[in-house]
C-alpha cells in the first residue's frame, strides 16, 4: 500500500474508470431511465472510451497531466449535464496535482477541487440529489484520513466508502437539480445516476491504489 500516488496510479485509474463504466453502462442507463432520460451510462461510456484512445497517444508527465487529459476529453465527448460537470471536476483536480506524487492531503485537495468545480458549474448543494452527494462526503472523509495521518491509499479508500454511502443517501431524496427535479416526489426511491457513477469512479481509484481493480 503506497504512501503516495504517482502517474502510474493515475493512468491505471483512468483505465479502471473506463472499464467500470463500460461494465455498468446498462445499470447507469437504467438508473437514468427511471428519473432522467436514460443516457448517463452511454454518455460516460462514450467519454471514457475516448479517454483511452487519447491516453494511448499522449505522454503525460504528471498526475495532473493525466487528469487534464481526462477533463478535456470528457468535456468534448460526453455532452449532457455530466460532461461539463465531470470535465470541470477533473480540470480543477488536475490543477492540484502538478507534482510527481500526491499524498493523503493531496488526495483530499484533489477531491475538494473536483467538487468545487462541480458546484461552480451546477450550483447544487448536498441533498439536491446529484453527484455532489457522493463527492462532498468523499472530500470530508479524505480530509479526515489525511489529518489522521493515513496514507494516500487509505485516504482514497475512505473517500470511496463515503462516496458509496453518499450515493445511497440519494435514494430517498426529492431532486432539486438536473432532470430528476422535474419529477417532484416521483424521484423518491431512485438513486441518482451521477452519484452512483461518482461512487463507482472513486471506488475504482481506491481499488487501483490498493493494487486491485
Amino acid at each position, binding site marked *: 500500500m503506497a504512501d503516495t500516488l504517482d502517474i502510474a496510479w493515475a493512468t491505471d485509474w483512468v483505465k479502471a474508470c473506463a472499464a467500470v463504466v463500460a461494465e455498468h453502462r446498462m445499470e447507469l*442507463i437504467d438508473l437514468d*431511465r427511471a*428519473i*432522467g*432520460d*436514460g*443516457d448517463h451510462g*452511454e*454518455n460516460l461510456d*462514450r467519454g471514457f472510451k475516448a479517454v483511452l484512445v487519447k491516453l494511448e497517444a499522449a505522454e503525460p508527465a504528471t498526475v495532473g497531466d493525466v487528469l487534464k487529459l481526462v477533463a478535456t476529453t470528457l*468535456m*468534448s*465527448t*460526453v*455532452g*449532457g*449535464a*455530466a*460532461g*461539463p*460537470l465531470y470535465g470541470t471536476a477533473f480540470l480543477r483536480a488536475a490543477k492540484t496535482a502538478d507534482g510527481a506524487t500526491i499524498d493523503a492531503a493531496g488526495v483530499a485537495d484533489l477531491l475538494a477541487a473536483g467538487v468545487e468545480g462541480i458546484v461552480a*458549474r*451546477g450550483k447544487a448543494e448536498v441533498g439536491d440529489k446529484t453527484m455532489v452527494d457522493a463527492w462532498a462526503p468523499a472530500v470530508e472523509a479524505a480530509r479526515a484520513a489525511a489529518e489522521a495521518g493515513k496514507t494516500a491509499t487509505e485516504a482514497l479508500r475512505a473517500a470511496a466508502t463515503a462516496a458509496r454511502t453518499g450515493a445511497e443517501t440519494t435514494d430517498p431524496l*426529492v431532486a*432539486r*437539480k*438536473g*432532470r430528476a*427535479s*422535474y*419529477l*417532484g416526489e*416521483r424521484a423518491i426511491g431512485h438513486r441518482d445516476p451521477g452519484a452512483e457513477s461518482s461512487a463507482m469512479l472513486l471506488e475504482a481509484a481506491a481499488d487501483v491504489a490498493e493494487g486491485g481493480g
Partner: protein
Amino acid sequence: MKKLINDAHVVVAESVEGFVQAHADLVKSSGNPEELFVSRAGGAVQGKVGLVSGGGSGHEPLHAGFVGKGMLDAAVPGPVFTSPTPDPILAATKAADGGAGVLHIVKNYTGDVLNFETAAELAEAEDILVKAIVVNDDVAVQDSLYTAGRRGVAGTVLVEKIAGAAAERGDDLDGVLAIATRVNDNVRSMGVALTACIVPHAGKPSFDLADDEIEIGIGIHGEPGRKRIKAVSADETTDLLLTPIVEDLGLSGGEKVVLFVNGMGGTPSSELYIVYRRARSQLEAKGVTVERSLVGNYITSLEMQGCSITLLRLDDELTELYDAPVDTPALRWGA
C-alpha cells in the same frame, strides 16, 4: 426494439448525412464527425446576426430542419437526447457569425445550458460576440428554487422562427435577443404521452405506460411527466394541457395567439387536428382569437405517441415576424 437504423452509435451521423443530401439546396453539414453541425448551404450572411441552436438529437425536425433563410444559421445535433459538447457548438458559432454576433437559442436543460455556456466563453475568446436566450416554456414543470427551472420544449420552434425573422430583418444582436426574450416570455407549452419512446442506445422504452394510461406533462426526452392518469378522450386530454397554459400565460378575452399543436413523432396528424379543434373551440369560448395555427411534428421525441400544445401571445410585431418568409427543410412559407 425495431428501428430503421444500422447501429445505435451511428444513428445521428447517418441520419444527418442523409438529411443534408436530401436538402442540399438549403443546408450543408460540417462533415467533421467530431464537430458535427448543419448550416445554411450558402454560409453565414454578412452583417446579419447569426442564430445557432442545438441539443440532443431525437427531436427532429428540430433543430437542423429549421436551418435556412428566415430561421437558423446553424444547428448542432448532439447524440440522441444528449446535449452536444462545446466543440461543435463553437464550430457552429464561428460558421454562423457574419460579423454581427451570434445568438444561442438554448433549451433549458442543465446539459444544454452548461455546454452552450462553455462554447460561448470559447467563442468570445475568439472575439465573436455571443448572447443566449434560454427557452423555458414548459408549464408542466414548476419554475422554482426546487427545480432546474422550467424546461424548453415546443416554444423553441416559435423562438427560432420569430428571432430568425428579426435577424433577417436586420435587427442587431441586442434587438434579436429582445425579440427572442419577448417570445419566450409569452409562450407556454405542455405535453402528453400515450406511449414512451425507445432511445436506440438504451434499447428499451424510456418508461412503462400501461395500455390504458397516459402521462401528462411529459418532456421531450422520454422523461416521465407530472402525473400518470387513466387515458381519457382527446377533448379531455386537450383540456388537461390547455388549462394550465392559459392560466400560466394569464390569457384573457380579446387577446390573440398562435395555437401550435405539436406531434411527438408517432401520432397520426389526423389526431393532432382533433386536439387542435378542441383547443381552438376552448380558446374561442374564452374570447381568445386564434390568429395563427401550426399543427404537425416539429419537435418530437423519437417515435413517442402524444402531443403538446403551445400558445404564444401575439402582438402586431410578433405576428409580422411570424408571417415573414421562411425557407427551411421543415418549415416553409412565403419563400
